[in-house]
């Protein structure tokens, strides 16, 4: 295997990792602000894929644009889910019970979404055909699939926008403040419950957009969520629970780990490397790479 092959794997891994990174940022934001692990994150991603698919097939909207169009409706959906369901079980004070309760609640939600989608739309996998999905850029010895490249660029763009939102706008800073110290945030007039709703809405919107980007090169079916939810968890833990830049780096890293695993293991075991990395991080350095110390309970 030549150096060029290795670079090819790494390049593909990074491109794929970019979309993983966008997915993971959503999960990290939700966890960082609300201390909620959203099991249904993968399912919202799946719904985002379907929305983008229908926009592409029905209205000839390019999936890059479709992914962006997914943002507003999914923000609203996330906000409503928080208001109707999560807000009723958070705020109890007992962190452990709350964690269990929200995990189970979102697991239930995930089941509903996956199965309802399978019921209403057929389980047959679909795909979006774009002109560039089968074409590649040639960069020296390596080939870069155009669909993956555009998805990567859009993912990075969106992630950048999120970063700007969190660091340049009052609302974004308020989200971070509420994540740091909810009690003190309240004293400044920041309504923590509203912040939770915003965080959940943004988190869900981001993962739906990521789904739209993923749909550019990945088959769309109701069961797609389960493969990616684990990757998202690993990315977020790798980066350090609660850290947004960490989750981004984690996503890229997961893409790389997956790609590099393929060098030595068959496709079936692609995620083995990911799971082993997951366990290693949990046991050896649970605070992840960007080790943000969680608020002590």
């Amino acid at each position: 295997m030549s150096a060029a092959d290795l670079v090819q794997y790494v390049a593909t891994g990074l491109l794929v990792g970019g979309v993983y990174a966008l997915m993971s940022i959503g999960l990290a934001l939700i966890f960082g602000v609300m201390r909620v692990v959203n099991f249904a994150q993968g399912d919202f991603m799946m719904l985002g894929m379907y929305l983008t698919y229908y926009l592409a097939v029905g209205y000839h909207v390019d999936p890059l644009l479709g992914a962006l169009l997914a943002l507003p409706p999914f923000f609203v959906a996330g906000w409503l889910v928080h208001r109707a369901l999560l807000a009723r079980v958070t705020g109890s004070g007992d962190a452990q019970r709350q964690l269990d309760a929200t995990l189970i609640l979102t697991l239930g939600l995930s089941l509903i979404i996956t199965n309802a989608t399978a019921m209403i739309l057929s389980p047959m996998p679909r795909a979006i055909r774009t002109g560039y999905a089968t074409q590649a850029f040639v960069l020296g010895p390596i080939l870069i699939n155009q669909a993956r490249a555009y998805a990567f660029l859009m993912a990075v763009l969106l992630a950048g926008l999120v970063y700007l939102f969190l660091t340049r706008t009052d609302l974004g800073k308020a989200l971070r403040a509420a994540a740091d110290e909810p009690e003190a945030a309240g004293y400044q007039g920041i309504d923590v419950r509203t912040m939770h709703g915003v965080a959940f809405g943004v988190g869900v919107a981001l993962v739906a957009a990521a789904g739209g980007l993923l749909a550019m090169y990945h088959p769309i079916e109701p069961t797609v969520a389960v493969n990616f939810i684990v990757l998202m968890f690993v990315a977020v833990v790798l980066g350090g629970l609660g850290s947004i830049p960490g989750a981004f780096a984690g996503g890229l890293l997961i893409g790389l780990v997956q790609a590099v695993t393929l060098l030595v293991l068959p496709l079936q075991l692609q995620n083995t490397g990911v799971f082993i990395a997951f366990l290693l991080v949990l046991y050896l350095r649970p605070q992840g790479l960007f080790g943000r110390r969680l608020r002590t309970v």
Partner: protein
Amino acid sequence: MSPRARGLLPILVVLAVGVLLIFTLQERYHQRVLTLVLLWATMGLAWNIISGYAGQTSFGHQAFFGIGAYGTVLLVLHLGLTPWIGMLVSAAVAVVAAALIGFPTFRLSGIYFALATLAYPLIFRIGMDFLGYQEVAIPMVRDRPGLYMQFTDPRANGLLCLGAFAAALLLSHAIEISRLGYRLRALRENEQAAEAMGVDTFRCKMAAYMLSAAPAAIAGAIYAHVILYVVTPDSTFGVLVIVQTLVVCLVGGIGSLWGPLIGAGLMVPTGEFLDASLGDRLPGIQGVVYGAALVLIMLVAPEGLYWRLRGLLQRGRVEAPSGAPAAVDMPARAAHLAGAAGQALLEVRGVARSFIGVQALDDVSFTVREGDILGIIGPNGAGKTTLFNVLNGFLPPDRGEVRYAGERISGLRPSAVCRLGVGRTFQVVRTFPQLTVLENVMVGAFTRTAAEREARDRAAAALQRFGLWPRAHARPGSLTTLELRLMELARCLATEPRLVLLDEPLAGLGAGSVEAMLGHIRRLPQAGVTVAIIEHTMYALVRLADRLLVLDHGRCLAEGPPADVTREAAVIEAYLGKRWLHRAQGLRA
């Protein structure tokens, strides 16, 4: 009737009903549903041991289910081993797996634990796929199929599942009334308090996890032979297994003996019915219903139906205990004390402890003599509770050592320190809210005895001593502040300590209650218990303590008889500020 027998009666009744159903249900379909109900109730009971009793929610129990299923089938396939034995072998493998998985994982907390448990079944799934076992059919046995768990008569299957369910029930019941059961519930309610009461929480969690793996494996083994016939990684290690388990336990009532049966009895027939009638037109309807069940139960009744119903039926009625508690031989400590009084019991030498940028304790040294009451005072942030946390074992010191009765205890777990004879109460009372007052104190008593009867008697005697016996069957939530503090003291004393560390036992008490509490504390040395007490209500401590130790900014400022210490300039300055001191001195000059 003894509590043991009283507990067994409903079990026997339910099993009898089970047998009756097996022999009266006519249709194969109904038999099958009953079989599934029993199987999932068994799996639920298994999960309940670690996630219900111990409160460590595991999202990966399907790993053991799968080990049971695949293990038994592969043993039949490759070794021709009958699943009756193969089942036991797989269960043993599952228990070992639980030990291996639990050992590193229980050191993690909260979200990390949940995520780690998620990873293992995924790994097993991939493993099975990779090893080429994507689809393993159980080889059909023609003659003597019963030897290989291949029954043609569905009633035999029903009895098999009932047997497994019975075993799981009996195991759960045995745990519930054992010392382990009380300890698990204590650590679920408040892990730190449990540690301080002598419960080695790590070992208890490991024990519960290993115990919970065996019935899960057996359920998996039976499921493979009676329902699946062909095992795939998804049907055994897959998410649906844990979802089914969760639904059954959460709807039924987590942490209870009957919850899994109630949940299974409700949800499994519903699921099967929906699948049979609508499954063709609406694939996945079962999943939607299960998901909706999880969401609803979390919103409306997270404790589950069993507890909700029990709460409604028992509304407010708390029986007063009947009769007086049995007399118990309290160890005659006072006599021993007469000889030992004055000897150094606790020696603290040069203890230092810092947190990020803050030196919480700096070169703290003092001695507590047997029979004394030592008061520890100091302004807010002086490091008093940190000191207790170091003495108790919750924090290791950065430097220095702590010796108790001549033995070094710094660095030991709190439960070990407790077993050696050092008790602790907390600034904010830490109760086990779901346990009754009597059961709370029993957790302490279990440090000295393994027998439930004896622990109960000792706890009752302790309650009697503090005048709490009438409240024995109440929940801590309904107690007054004084009663709560007394309960915590009783629980601590049930561990038969020679030294107790009391952290602000007077906080939150009104004047009359303070006097009562002081009276109890004052009597402790006579009963052979030495006391170190942190307090802020100075006027009380001044009258109570033989010696005072003053801490400020982590350092010892003064030590000696109360009258001397409170007049010392440094102390006044620490409490009221330098300028107050100057004024006071200026006024006197």
